[in-house]
């Protein structure tokens, strides 16, 4: 019988013991963090659709490090830096998640697929109730997306990386992924993880911001629901075609996002049920699942040891906080413009975390006054927020790529 070495059998343990102490500690910390994400996702504290696959991917990849050769360690999940054709062919045949990463993640397809799904779930009719008011709120709710940009530059980030992290303020995670892939490829993993992590927390944090900035009397302001016009499918489709074409014409670099979102809307309004069910179900949830899993798998110890990650964590929360404040200021602006008939809580829905922030707005209004129904306007502001975020993403990418 050959001599058996204990550590030869359990290579994950062997690579942990052989690694530098900082790397070993970071691996253990990320395994624990991944398990915590799964727990908080299952419990419902964080968004389960993203956090369960992401947390599990994070803990698995940091546990499953093995010796690839006498001098090199790695995993059988994926190699994010393989770009040379021969190296890539090897990686595609060895790493089980490499095909999904190479053919859907690194080219932004997964973000566009999620945008298809968001489009199918979005009723643009809400925006047509009061397009100018919704758009004014959405513009204010981008305060974090623009203000964080010079702050990040002041903290030492180059312009492209500053723009990528500032996009967290749009509260639109697929958009953040797409922009960071184009602007700051080296940082897209931590930036996207920061975005998803904070967006999960936004659902818990924004109600406090609303209560802090809007008095109960105004939170419970009842709006006139009789004035909601009836909008036909033809009008919605015409709007989607015109807007998508115009925006793609202006910002070709962001045209995949525009196409994804507006095609989703057109499919929804066309009423082709098999397409609606396919895109709103398997495509959206499949893309979300693999996005979460791949983000988790990409979050290896070396990623968190990048000193920029702490900076990204600070800038990400700053961006979301500023956007929330901006949205509520926008709500107040429209409140004054409308002769005090518009509920300012709707402002928070301009932060385009569709439909989460719209639900937050409705919940807060309802808690203040059980007769306050603001969801249609809040959804309109949220849809406007998606469009405004895509415009800002297009400008950033066009200017700084």
């Amino acid at each position, binding site marked *: 019988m050959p001599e058996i070495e204990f550590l030869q059998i359990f290579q994950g343990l062997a690579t942990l013991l052989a690694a530098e102490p900082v790397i070993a500690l970071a691996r253990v910390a990320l395994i624990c963090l991944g398990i915590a994400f799964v727990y908080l996702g299952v419990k419902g504290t964080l968004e389960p659709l993203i956090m369960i696959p992401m947390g599990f991917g994070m803990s698995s990849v940091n546990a499953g490090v093995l010796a690839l050769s006498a001098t090199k360690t790695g995993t059988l999940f994926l190699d994010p830096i393989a770009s040379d054709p021969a190296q890539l062919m090897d990686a595609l045949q060895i790493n089980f998640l490499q095909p999904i990463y190479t053919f859907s993640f690194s080219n932004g397809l997964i973000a566009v697929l999620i945008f298809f799904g968001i489009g199918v779930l979005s009723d643009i009719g809400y925006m047509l109730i009061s397009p100018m008011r919704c*758009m004014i709120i959405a513009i204010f709710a981008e305060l974090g997306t623009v203000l964080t940009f010079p702050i990040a530059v002041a903290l030492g980030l180059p312009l492209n990386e500053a723009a990528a992290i500032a996009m967290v303020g749009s509260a639109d995670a697929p958009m953040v992924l797409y922009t960071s892939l184009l602007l700051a490829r080296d940082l897209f993993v931590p930036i996207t993880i920061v975005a998803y992590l904070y967006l999960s927390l936004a659902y818990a944090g924004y109600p406090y911001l609303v209560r802090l900035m809007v008095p109960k009397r105004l939170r419970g302001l009842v709006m006139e629901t009789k004035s909601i016009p009836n909008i036909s499918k033809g009008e919605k489709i*015409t709007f989607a075609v015109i807007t998508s074409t115009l925006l793609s014409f202006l910002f070709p670099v962001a045209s995949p996002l525009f196409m994804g979102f507006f095609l989703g809307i057109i499919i929804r309004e066309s009423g082709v049920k098999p397409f609606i069910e396919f895109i709103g179900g398997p495509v959206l949830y499949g893309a979300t699942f693999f996005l979460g899993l791949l983000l988790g798998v990409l979050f290896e110890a070396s990623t968190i040891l990048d000193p920029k990650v702490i900076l990204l964590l600070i800038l990400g929360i700053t961006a979301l906080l500023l956007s929330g404040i901006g949205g509520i200021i926008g709500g107040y602006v429209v409140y004054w413009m409308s002769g005090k008939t518009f509920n300012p809580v709707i402002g928070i829905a301009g932060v385009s975390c569709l439909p989460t922030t719209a639900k937050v707005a409705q919940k807060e209004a309802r808690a203040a006054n059980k007769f306050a129904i603001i969801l249609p306007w809040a959804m309109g502001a949220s849809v406007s927020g998606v469009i405004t975020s895509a415009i800002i993403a297009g400008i950033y990418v066009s200017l700084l790529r």
Partner: protein
Amino acid sequence: MEAVWGAVKLMFFIYGLAAVLSLIVAWILKILFAAVQAQKARAVARNAAMVAPAAEDAEGDKTASQGSA
């Protein structure tokens, strides 16, 4: 410091451009909606105008047939 000042200027430009484009999108929507509503109103008015003479003709036929009986 110069880089930060440059970023601040760029921020104002980006925010301004985004605001203008967003308002153009909202304006397109408003114009589109107004045009469709106007078209609907015209169609309703046209239908009403076509129904009125038809009703008058029917009334006239009825009177004629009663007269001939």
